[in-house]
């Protein structure tokens, strides 16, 4: 019982991170119908900026943990958003309106470029950070056993919930969100009605990047070690999460992320850890066979 709970906690923590990154994939897909393959690298850059910010703050003697975290959060959102914006401006906007494959290829190119850039600029070694948030709660589950919930895991879940709430509010309740939804439905018509479509798309990339940067900060705090290659695997899993949940759907991305995290954890708990990725992608294939649009996605209707 405590074992199951332990593993569920592990899965939900991991899934929250996947979900945060998946939101970026799904938002961009919703608006311009392309997969931003460089998104995993944007998350990696977010992690590096968080780490650098934390180290700078610590070296200036800022010791209060909440202050360090909030300043690091602000710094990483700010700088990573600039990267997200620049990626769109440089690699995707000039290709808008050309064949569908062109931005896909430039996305892959951007991903390789960012990865190599960080490798050269920051070195290839693993960058460690000493544990910042230690300790945790013991949750009694009866018969003398208890499951463990670390404070940093609580932080990850709460932050993810908060980010999710903020972005749902932006998309559903603000006038910017309305323009975003309008662009998603029909970009041409939205432009005719006076919406600055380019600006909306830029802002969407900025939103996606800022969520990825939050995921980066959380990962730095949780694992305390990053390198230039972490974006690849995390990006792949998050992309899978977005597809599983229904690409284009915000709650779908979160649900997909959580599902993937939990499937990974539960499969590892009761079977060979070696095959957990095979299990995750097996579930993905199975779901897509029956619901090609994903769990919460809308089927695309071809208008004639």
């Amino acid at each position: 019982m405590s074992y199951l709970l332990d593993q569920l906690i592990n899965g939900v923590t991991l899934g929250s991170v996947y979900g945060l990154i998946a939101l970026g994939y799904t938002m961009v897909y919703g608006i311009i119908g392309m997969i931003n393959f460089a998104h995993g690298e944007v998350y990696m850059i977010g992690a590096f900026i968080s780490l650098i910010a934390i180290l700078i703050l610590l070296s200036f003697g800022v010791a209060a943990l909440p202050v360090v975290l909030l300043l690091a959060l602000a710094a990483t959102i700010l700088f990573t958003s600039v990267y997200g914006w620049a990626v769109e401006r440089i690699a995707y906007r000039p290709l808008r309106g050309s064949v569908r494959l062109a931005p896909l290829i430039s996305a892959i190119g951007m991903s390789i470029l960012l990865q190599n850039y960080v490798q050269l600029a920051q070195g290839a070694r693993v960058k460690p950070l000493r544990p910042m948030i230690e300790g945790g709660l013991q949750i009694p589950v009866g018969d003398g056993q208890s499951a463990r919930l670390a404070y940093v895991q609580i932080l990850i879940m709460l932050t993810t919930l908060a980010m999710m709430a903020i972005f749902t509010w932006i998309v559903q309740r603000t006038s910017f969100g309305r323009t975003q939804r309008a662009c998603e439905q029909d970009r041409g018509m939205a432009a005719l009605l006076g919406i600055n479509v380019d600006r909306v798309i830029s802002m969407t990339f900025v939103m996606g990047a800022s969520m990825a940067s939050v995921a980066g900060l959380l990962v730095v705090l949780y694992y305390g070690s990053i390198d230039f290659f972490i974006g690849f695997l995390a990006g792949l899993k998050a992309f899978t999460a977005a597809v599983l949940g229904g690409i284009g759907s915000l709650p779908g991305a979160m649900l997909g992320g959580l599902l993937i995290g939990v499937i990974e954890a539960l499969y590892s708990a009761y079977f060979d850890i070696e095959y957990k990725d095979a299990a995750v992608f097996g579930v993905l294939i199975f779901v897509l066979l029956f619901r090609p649009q994903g769990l919460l996605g809308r089927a695309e209707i071809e208008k004639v």
Partner: protein
Amino acid sequence: MLRTKVVTSTIAGAVLSLLAGAASAEITIAVVGPMTGQNAAFGEQLRRGAEAAVADINAAGGINGEQLVLEVGDDACDPKQAVSVANQMANKGAVFVAGHYCSGSSIPASDVYNEAGILQISPASTNPDFTERGLPNTFRTCSRDDKQGDIAGNYLLKNYPGKRIAFVHDKSAYGKGLADATRATYLAGGGNVEVYEAITAGERDYSTLVSKLKAQKIDVLYYGGYHSESGMLARQLRQAGLSMQLISGDATVTQEFWSISGDAGEGTMMTFPPDPRNNPEAAPVVASFKEQGVDPEGYTLYTYAAVQVFAQAAAKAQSTALEDLTAVLHQDAFNTVLGEIRFDEKGDVVGPTYVFYKWRAGSYSQM
């Protein structure tokens, strides 16, 4: 059409051999390892060891009056990249390669070197297959995982009788080979294995494994794999409040392990040959490293020794052809920073064995 092609390639061949002839006043050798990527700390050990050895040999007049030129290759511990670097080194006319680091890289690269007639002495690849496949060109100055596994397995049997033991590896040629060798010895001695799992190298999240180990009440975790994962594992074990003993192999002898694990690395044990830094033969070399502010830890001196062995063999054979070198290598003893070493018919070093080291307060020492 075909004829022109043949003619062109003959001319190209002739030009190439001319160039090679012109450059023959120098002997090109190479050091190849993970200069970038997760294991870059070890790539640096290899590079430093080789550079120092080449500098010292050249300062002493080179080999038969010819100076050594060192090429540095980066395989990032990726088997595919290892093969392409091996081809590059062959094209550059290297006659000897000190490397690679990861067994998974050394093994496929050795086929390329063998075809090109290049001698390969690995300072660090401990997987038995490296020398077991009967290639004439493969040698190593380190020992083998079957020996290492034997010693680690017997240590577990002797020191942790009745304890619950888990074996985990990273699916790499080195990691799996070592974990399996240790497990085999342990099982043969009547031990019980409670958990046997594999993780994916390069991943960050080992929380599911940690929970599994916790639920199984594991006392000792034996890990076969590289330092970046063992460092993360140590950290996540302690973060979950577990105090089990972590034991790993020779790929944990780098200061980088501690920088990843932090205080969670305290008490981690590993097997490695007796520290060559304490050899009297190594004293001047160690001193000159320290002068440059470098600690010749881990495989640095093993790489130095690999270059020394090549230099002594080439001087004795008066040649750098593979057959001449191997004839000497199998016959002679060599005076190196590791002490006097000999090679058996497979290309493995005769003699040296493994001892246990322990991490305490940020540094490791022999137990």
